[in-house]
């Protein structure tokens, strides 16, 4: 197992370097002068622009800039500063917190709603409930986040308040604490809830057909016990791995949700930094997201081995 982890980590190194270099190149190619961007509608004083360019190594060739950046990250754990001299790590810390809160809210909703619905459908397999649930998952998969976001914002954020006077779901921002995350969390989770419902249904249905379930039923165990103890436990494996892998997806895919609900997370930050051409911020965020992706996948594979004794890693 240990050797396997090490091998996986070593394999991740080129992926990490490749991804950061790729992003670095793209940001490097972004049109417009990052220094000019700082001056808004005024033409920057060329003398000042020159000093700033020198200060941020913008006159150096691409690979040298990349070296400055990556050596800072590797040897000093320093992600650099943006053009207002604010450390990128400081910027990222705050934003990652918001996105993590959002992603975790979404993950909990996925687990509760997705598994719940999937279970229900599996137990009512072939009946009307099952068909209804399946049809609604199709709907959920199809409606883009862009649309669910705005529709729920209007219905639950604004209209609900107008009709009932209850301010349950804030329209935007994070000023209302954890309640701020409920609505965007659900919007972000939308598609995943639907996938998880389907996965739970398929997985549990497959398990329930297995011989040992038949044996358990034949032994005279109650249905609750058969499903709960024997069925669900084994059906859980793909679900846990799905959730694990989805955390990275949720964090990387939150930009639309964050924009609609004005949450200042990494998606939003990245979006703004792309426009300000803040290379270190963009690359920093993507690097961390890639890391999360790699680690999440590794953890998921470990979980496989833990949950299913038949799998052994060399």
């Amino acid at each position, binding site marked *: 197992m240990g050797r396997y982890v090490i091998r996986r980590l070593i394999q991740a190194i080129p992926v990490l370097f490749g991804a950061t270099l790729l992003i670095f190149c793209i940001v490097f190619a972004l049109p417009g002068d990052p220094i000019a961007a700082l001056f808004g*509608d005024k033409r920057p004083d060329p003398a000042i622009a*020159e000093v700033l360019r020198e200060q941020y190594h913008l006159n150096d060739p691409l690979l040298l800039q990349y070296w400055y950046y990556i050596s800072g990250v590797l040897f000093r754990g320093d992600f650099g500063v943006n053009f207002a001299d604010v450390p990128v790590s400081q910027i990222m810390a705050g934003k990652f917190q918001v996105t993590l809160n959002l992603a975790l809210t979404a993950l909990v909703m996925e687990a509760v709603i997705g598994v719940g619905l999937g279970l229900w459908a599996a137990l009512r397999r072939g009946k009307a409930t099952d068909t209804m649930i399946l049809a609604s998952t199709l709907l959920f998969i199809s409606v883009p986040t862009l649309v669910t976001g705005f529709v729920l914002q209007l219905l639950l954020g604004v209209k609900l308040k107008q009709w009932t006077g209850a301010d349950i779901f804030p329209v935007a921002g994070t000023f209302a604490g954890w309640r701020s995350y409920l609505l965007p969390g659900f919007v972000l989770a939308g598609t995943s809830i639907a996938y998880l419902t389907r996965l739970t249904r398929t997985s549990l249905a497959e398990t329930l057909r297995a011989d040992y379930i038949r044996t358990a039923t034949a032994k005279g165990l109650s249905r609750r016990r058969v499903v709960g103890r024997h069925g669900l436990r084994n059906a859980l494996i793909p679900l846990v791995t799905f959730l694990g892998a989805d955390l990275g997806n949720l964090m990387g895919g939150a930009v639309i949700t964050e924009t609609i609900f004005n949450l200042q997370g990494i998606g939003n930050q990245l979006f703004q930094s792309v426009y300000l051409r803040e290379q270190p911020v963009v690359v920093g965020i993507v690097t961390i997201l890639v890391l999360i992706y790699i680690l999440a996948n590794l953890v998921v594979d470990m979980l496989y081995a833990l949950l299913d004794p038949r799998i052994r890693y060399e």
Partner: protein
Amino acid sequence: MRVTKGAQIVAGTALLALAVAACGGGASDSGGTAAGGGDTTPVRMEIGEPQELLVPQNTTETEGSEVLAALFSPLVGYDENKQPVEEAAESVTTEDSKVWTIKLKSGYTWHDGTAVTAADYARAWNYAALQDNAMSASYFFGRIDGYEDVHPGEGKKPSAKEMKGLKVVDDLTLEVTLAAPFSQFKTMLGYTAFYPLPESAIGPDGKVTQAYGEQPIGQGLFKLDKPYKKGTDATIEASVYDKFPGKKPSNWTKLQFKVYTSAETAYNDLQAENLDVDDSLPPSAIASAKAALGDRYFDEPDASIGYIGVPLKYNPDFQDVQVRRAISLAIDRKTIAETVFSGTRAPADDFINPAIPGYRQGACDACTYNPAEAKKLYDEAGGPKNIEVGYNADGGHKEWIEAVANNLRANLGIEVTPKPFEKFQGILDALDGKEYKGLFRMGWAIDYPAAENYLSPIFGTGAIESGSNYGGYSNKEFDELIKKGDQATDAAEGLKFYQQADDILIKELPYIPVYFYRSNFGHSTKVKNVKLNLLNQIDWADVEKA
């Protein structure tokens, strides 16, 4: 100064504009972090995220300026007649508009207790002007004698560290010699760039320290409670500085700036009384704000202007003044101001903004909507059949540019293509590189409240190379009049010449003025007597808790 609010007001893609980045982090509603008992709950003010660290000499946008204005006391403020009056200065005098003597009031101290001296001003201004420090406000000092030595331009090394025009006479007297007479110099002194810097702000390497930028020590009404960590903190907290010699608020001591990234969110908080002062109401909220806030809603002129710029230097098609007049007459400013901006802009009818002395209502005769006349003029002059209108996509300009394009298409019968550029600078680069020669949007927020600031920095021949004259307009008569105005020995006399220069612009329309900005702000029931000054900053000393 840049209007970062303008960008903020129009959400959508504008969210990414300029300084509108900020943190979340789940700040508490009530802002109950204030120490002490019940009556120290803070007065809460809306801002967008400051773009840079809080260094006055590097702050040329509205949000950072708003914070700094609470921490610093300017040399001059502005009275109801928009005239400069001394604040931290005892007097600002001149004989010839060239040599200015600034006497400071005694009794001002830095927030760390040390006295403020004339040397602190000289230090700050020299620091700002020195090219190597790359301070964005350095151009404010360009009129001071010796600026060329410390700021010789691209590729050249400064030959001095200090401007020879700045002389510290004694602890409370500063003598400023300008390179050429400038009658409006006193009005400039109220600006962020002219705040002083304490000795402790400069680190061993000769630069302003990071720590100072996070927690600047000022000499004004409020003192920061703790460093502001940009990107992480959702609030900036300050308390009244007890040794401040000027007027203090009568019944409150804590001020809190809440950083918002969306004008809509801030407006919601204002209605829920989670915010006390909001000066960037979104256009979508204006209609409801009048009803919801009643006499707590205010709509006042703001000193900024929006134009359609004409690339005179780059495109012969627009040389004929009749073409420019026709385009101007074809724009339905009133409907655009009312519909696209919901009244957060007013139709422009002069090159000088109504917020500033010197504005004349209805001065621009070609700024009225007259599609029939426009069509006639345009056809007679044989204007181009295809024109482009460039705009920067990062500032929420798309909608009004599309509206202007629709006006021109429908009224002049020509093809008009709105062309988005990443940044405003992109338009300028494309013009310079001869890749683009269409019309372009342009905005101007003043650097100091004088009519002159709407004229020479944008239309003066000298501003083509080093200023903001992006269209390349050049008129000798205009330049002469500006010079006469500058040399006048008092501001009122100068204004007469500036208005004559304005008349030339109105006749020639080097740019087409489209709208004046408006300041739309409101406050909660918890405060009263909230007023914006000429720089769109709140006079905190006058605000009372209700």
